[in-house]
């Protein structure tokens, strides 16, 4: 897929998202602990759930770069995360699981009659891999029938109506998806899918791309606001205290985009540097996106702190990513661990590859 084709694909997605998702209905649904009912039919009509499937299974055979570009749009328009992940993770896992049940769920997903969600082990998962029983916090779509736990070596698919499975819904940081505590005590409810490292890496790249889109949206709301909002007889953007904050937000978004561009390239070329770049970005991109959202709220003043203006939806979405990764201390320590494990004295690694 060339750059123009990718742009057209992303534009098609963005058009549907823009026509389907709006802040007032997201906020109204969030108060009811759900998401607007109009989104799933629109995404089904677009064929969204198939985007992560290989061509042999009726998908488009998209690359990491394609999927990441689409994920930027998901964050930019606040597509509820479980619906993003049904396409990026769940459908491909079901396709690979090759059981009767998984085929039925996949069919349901593609038809818009089945929903799901899941969780991923923080990157890099190393020796930790999902067992057939355990407990996890997951982002699940309303009425989810099937879930996954994504790992770097293998993953599992969970029948949420299966034996020994309990699902306790909890309010999550990101109110557009909520968090469910899923406990599995009977291995009969899970199916293991091997060799899911490619999906696992691609998903983290996409998650960070989503953060980029979210942060960019918060910035895009802030700049015109500051240019129009007047205090002391002039637009607040004319004060350096405000314009420099906006500039720093732009810097954060640019840095995140540059980091993503590199990790996509490294991933697609299977470079030895891909893993260390992705570990590092799992720390920096959510942290940068969080700073942008916090500054966006500050620039908007009291307006930014209101429920109805909706900036908190962007902030919560990014906070949820940091939380799922274990928090910024954990992500920084993972970077340090990865670096130190590879450390062999003073040397400089090769080029951009």
């Amino acid at each position, binding site marked *: 897929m060339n750059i123009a084709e990718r742009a057209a694909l992303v534009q098609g997605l963005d058009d549907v998202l823009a026509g389907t998702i709006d802040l007032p209905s997201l906020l109204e649904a969030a108060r009811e602990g759900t998401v607007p009912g109009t989104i799933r039919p629109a995404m089904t009509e677009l064929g969204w759930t198939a985007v992560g499937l290989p061509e042999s299974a009726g998908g488009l055979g998209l690359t990491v770069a394609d999927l990441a570009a689409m994920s930027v749009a998901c964050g930019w328009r606040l597509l509820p995360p479980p619906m993003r992940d049904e396409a990026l993770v769940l459908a491909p896992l079901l396709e690979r699981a090759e059981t009767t049940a998984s085929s039925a769920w996949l069919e349901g997903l593609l038809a818009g009659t089945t929903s799901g969600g899941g969780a991923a082990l923080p990157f890099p998962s190393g020796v930790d891999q999902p067992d057939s029983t355990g407990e996890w916090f997951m982002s699940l779509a309303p009425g989810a029938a099937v879930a996954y736990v994504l790992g770097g070596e293998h993953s599992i698919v969970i029948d949420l109506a299966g034996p020994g499975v309990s699902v306790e819904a909890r309010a999550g940081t990101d109110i557009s998806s909520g968090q469910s505590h899923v406990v599995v005590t009977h291995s009969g409810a899970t199916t293991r899918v091997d060799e899911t490292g490619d999906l696992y890496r691609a998903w983290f790249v996409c998650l960070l791309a989503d953060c980029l889109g979210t942060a960019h949206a918060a910035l895009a709301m802030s700049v015109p606001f500051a240019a129009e909002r007047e205090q002391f007889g002039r637009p607040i953007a004319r004060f350096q205290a405000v314009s420099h904050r906006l500039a720093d937000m732009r810097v954060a978004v640019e840095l995140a985009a540059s980091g993503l561009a590199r990790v996509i390239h490294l991933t697609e070329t299977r470079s030895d540097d891909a893993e260390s770049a992705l570990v590092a970005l799992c720390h920096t991109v959510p942290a940068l996106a969080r700073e942008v959202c916090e500054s966006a709220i500050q620039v908007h003043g009291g307006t930014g702190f209101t429920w109805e203006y909706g900036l908190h939806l962007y902030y919560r979405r990014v906070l949820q990513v940091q939380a799922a990764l274990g928090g910024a201390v954990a992500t920084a320590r993972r970077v*340090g661990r990865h670096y130190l494990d590879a450390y062999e004295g003073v040397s400089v690694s090769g080029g951009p590859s």
Partner: protein
Amino acid sequence: MTDLPEIPPTLTSDESDEELRHTLRSWIRNNDPGPPPREYGAKMAALTEWQAQLHAAGFIGMSWPRQFGGGGRPLSAEAVLAEELARSSRPQLINRLALYTWGPTIFDWGTEDQKARFLPGMLDASELWCQGFSEPEAGSDLASVRTTAIADGNELVLNGQKVWTSRAELSKWNGMLVRTDPGSDRHSGLSVVIVDMESPGITVRPFPQILDEPHFSEVFYDDVRVPVANVLGGIDNGWKVAMAAMAYERGLFVLERQIGLRQRFDELTGRLVADGRAEGELERLGVLFADLDLLRAQVYRTLAGQITGDLPVGSSSVDKLHLAHVYQRLYSTAFDLLGEEAAATGEGDWMHDLLESRSVSIYSGTSEIQRNIIAAQMLGLR
């Protein structure tokens, strides 16, 4: 601003870059003359000799067009050079201001005569370059330049004072921003003129910086005569030319510094590993590594944009801001972690680098000026 953000291009390298890397690595292994002497004058002479050696071997100006004596390779070749030089005991090219900034500016704005006269000496380091922009009353507010250059026949007569001129005493040529229209104001009436530093009427007075090293000077110009033919890009067109030169001042510059910082970070880790303390500092090491990796990604993005010619206006300010952030954070952290060892000069010299790091958020436009540029040029706030 309401458009969906796109993921930008990044620097990639091909097989010929990897071949070059291989060639350079073995050449450097066989020809590295070892660390330069500590004494400033001897050190500068040694670095000049090193660039001449690299030039003779065909490694200088690799991305310059062939007609200007270059190698006609893509910019990625310069990235390979910077990365391989970083492994040597002499990582910086003495004439990098000429190679990275004035050379490309002359490609764009110079006459054929200027190209023929000025470019060759940049490559073999036989003529070093400096830059005369800042003045006592024109620091961040560069458009307040007062140094005048008044036409007198085929010559301009320069009068005024410049400050912070790095390597003024070693340089043959100085790219200066001067006021050619004495009645003009601000950005109009300025010109960039190439001045021979051996001209009568130039007084260079070293201006020791925070480390008491003579890196830069105050330079006084009293009736200095310069041929009109040395004006670059046309009389009274200097603001445009100066801004173009400053835009070239990112990219490879930041790449070179980024590589240096990564080496120092590895050295810091080495100290901590030797003391058995690295395991206890995973978080701080992780933060530094992640920031450095982001700087590398940012500079690769800038170089990719320079290659394709579609670098967003103002985006090089992003590089400068993040460079300053990472630079200062690395040396602050090193100082905090190493304590007494960092305070002592000598091997490592962390104190030296901590002090020096304070310059990074000041030179070439302070961090505050970079934010003004981003607000105006990237966010449309004016």
